[in-house]
C-alpha cells in the first residue's frame, strides 16, 4: 500500500512540473493560431515590407517594421547605457573592491531591478525628459531617448550581477600568473580575466537585450504611441510592447482583425526573445562544462 501512495505522490509532483511545458505549448499555440487567422486577411509580404503600421486608423496598414525599429532603437539606447556601466561595475567589484563592500553593494544594486517598471516610466516622463529638454530643445515630450536611458539604468544589475559572477569564477591562478609578470590590476582584468569569462559576460549581455526588448511600461509611458520608421531618438515612436498595451486599453472586439494584430505583434516579440534566450542557454551550458 505505501508503495502506491509514494507512486501517486511522485506522479502528482511530475504533473506540476509538466505544467511548465503546458505553459510554453499554450503560449506558442495561442500566438500561432491567432497569427494564422491574422495572415488570412493580411498578406505576410505586406507585414514584413510595408513601412506603415496603422491598424487603428481608417487607412489601414500592417507593416511591422516601424514597431520593430521602435523596439530595437529603445533597446539599443538602453544597452549603450547598461553595457559600459554594468561591465565597469562588474570588473570593479570582482577585481578591485574589498569583499565587505562587494557584499553590501550587490543587494543594493539588485534593488534597481526590483523597482516596478511603471515607476521607471514615471521617472523617464516626469524627470528625465524635462531635464534633457534643457540641452536638446527640440526633444519631444515622448521620445525613445529618455525611455532608453531609464531602461538602461533598470537593466544595469542584469549585466553587472551575471558578469560579476562570471569574472569571480575565473580561477585565482590565472590572475596570479598575470600579476607575477608585473601586470597591473587593470591589465590583468582586461587581458586575462575578461577574456576568460567572456562567455558568461556574453550571456549577461544577451539576457539584458532580451529583457530590454520585452520591457513594456517604460516605453508605453515615455516613448509615445506613434509607430514610425525612424532612428531619430528625439521623436515619439512606438514599440511592439507599447502597441499591445495601447490596443488592450481600448475597446477592441474579441476576434476582430485589430484584436489579432496584438498576437501578430506578440509572436514577433516572442520569436526574438526566444532566440536570444536559447542562444544564452546554450552558451551557459557550454561554459559550465568548461569550469567544472
Amino acid at each position: 500500500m505505501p508503495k502506491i501512495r509514494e507512486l501517486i505522490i511522485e506522479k502528482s509532483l511530475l504533473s506540476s512540473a509538466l505544467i511548465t511545458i503546458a505553459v510554453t505549448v499554450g503560449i506558442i499555440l495561442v500566438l500561432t493560431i491567432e497569427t494564422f487567422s491574422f495572415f488570412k486577411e493580411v498578406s505576410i509580404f505586406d507585414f514584413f515590407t510595408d513601412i506603415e503600421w496603422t491598424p487603428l486608423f481608417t487607412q489601414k496598414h500592417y507593416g511591422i517594421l516601424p514597431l520593430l525599429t521602435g523596439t530595437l532603437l529603445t533597446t539599443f539606447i538602453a544597452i549603450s547605457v547598461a553595457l559600459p556601466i554594468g561591465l565597469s561595475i562588474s570588473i570593479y567589484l570582482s577585481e578591485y573592491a574589498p569583499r565587505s563592500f562587494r557584499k553590501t553593494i550587490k543587494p543594493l544594486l539588485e534593488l534597481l531591478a526590483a523597482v516596478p517598471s511603471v515607476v521607471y516610466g514615471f521617472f523617464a516622463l516626469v524627470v528625465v525628459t524635462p531635464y534633457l529638454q534643457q540641452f536638446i530643445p527640440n526633444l519631444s515630450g515622448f521620445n525613445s531617448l529618455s525611455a532608453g536611458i531609464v531602461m538602461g539604468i533598470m537593466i544595469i544589475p542584469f549585466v553587472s550581477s551575471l558578469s560579476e559572477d562570471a569574472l569571480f569564477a575565473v580561477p585565482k591562478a590565472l590572475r596570479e600568473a598575470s600579476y607575477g609578470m608585473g601586470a597591473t590590476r587593470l591589465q590583468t582584468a582586461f587581458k586575462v580575466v575578461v577574456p576568460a569569462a567572456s562567455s558568461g559576460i556574453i550571456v549577461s549581455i544577451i539576457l539584458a537585450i532580451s529583457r530590454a526588448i520585452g520591457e513594456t511600461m517604460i516605453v508605453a509611458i515615455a516613448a509615445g504611441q506613434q509607430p514610425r520608421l525612424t532612428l531619430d531618438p528625439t521623436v515619439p515612436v512606438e514599440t511592439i510592447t507599447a502597441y499591445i498595451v495601447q490596443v488592450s486599453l481600448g475597446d477592441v472586439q474579441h476576434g476582430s482583425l485589430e484584436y489579432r494584430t496584438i498576437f501578430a505583434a506578440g509572436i514577433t516579440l516572442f520569436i526574438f526573445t526566444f532566440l536570444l534566450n536559447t542562444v544564452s542557454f546554450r552558451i551557459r551550458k557550454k561554459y559550465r562544462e568548461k569550469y567544472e
Partner: protein
Amino acid sequence: MNSIQKNRLKDQLFKFWGIACTLAGLVLLVIFIGGILVDGLSRIDWAFITDLPSRKAEKSGIWTPLMGSVWVLILTALISFPISVAAGVYLEEYAKKNRLSALLEINISNLAGVPSIIYGLLGLEVFVRIMHLGASVLAGALTLSLLILPIIIVATREAIKAVPNSIREASYALGASKWQTIWNQVLPASSGGILTGVILALSRAIGETAPLIVVGALAYVPFAPKGPLDQFSVLPIQIFNWISRPQQGFIDNAAAAIIILLFITFIMNGIAVYFRNKWQKKLQ
C-alpha cells in the same frame, strides 16, 4: 613618465571610474525617490488610502486598486506556491538524468525569459476567453501565477540543493520512505530558501502592470472587488492611468501612489533578505 607609471595611473583611474559607475545607479535611484517623496508625500493621508477613485485629482484615493492588488497577490500566492514548489521538488529529488528532465530544465529557463506581456496574451486567450473568467481577479491572478512559476521553481531547487545529503541518509536509515524524507526533513530544512524565493516572486508580481492591462484589468473600477470573479484594478495600473493625464494634480497622485507601491515592494524585499540570512545561518 615611464610606462610603469602610466600603467599604474590608468589602474588608479579605472578604480575611480568603477566606484563612480557603482554609485551612479544608486545615486540616480536616491535622487529619483527623493523627487517622488517631495511630489507625493504631502498627498498621502488616511483619506488618500481609503477614498474611491474620482474625476477630481484631489478627491481621488487608491482604495479600489489597493484592494485589487491585495486580492491578486493572495490568489497568486495560493495558486503558484503549491504548483511551483511541487515542480521544484520533482526536479531536484525525483527527476532522473534523461531527456524529459533536460527538456523541463531548458523550458523553465526559457519561460523565465519570456516577456511578461506575452503571459498577458496567453491569459487573455485562455483564462479570459476560453475559460470565460472575464477580466476578473482570478484571470489576473492565474496569469501572474504562470509568470512567477519559473522564479519560484528555480528558488525551490536552489534551496533543496543546499540541504546536505546526510540529512536524507539519516532519514532513510531510520526507515523513512522517500516522500516521508522529503516532507519531514528536506522541505523543513529548505523552507527558508523557498520562502525567500516566494516573497521575491510575489514582490515582482505586485509591480507587474503590462500582463494585467492585456488581460483587461481596468483603469477605473468604482468598487473594490468582493470575490475572485469581480472586475479589478491594481496599484500599478492606477499609477499608469494617472501618469497619462496632463493635470499636475494627477501627477502628484501618481507620485503618492508610487510611494505606497515602492513601500510595499521594498518591505517585501527586506523580509525576503531577512529570511535568507536567517536561513543561511541555520544551514551553516
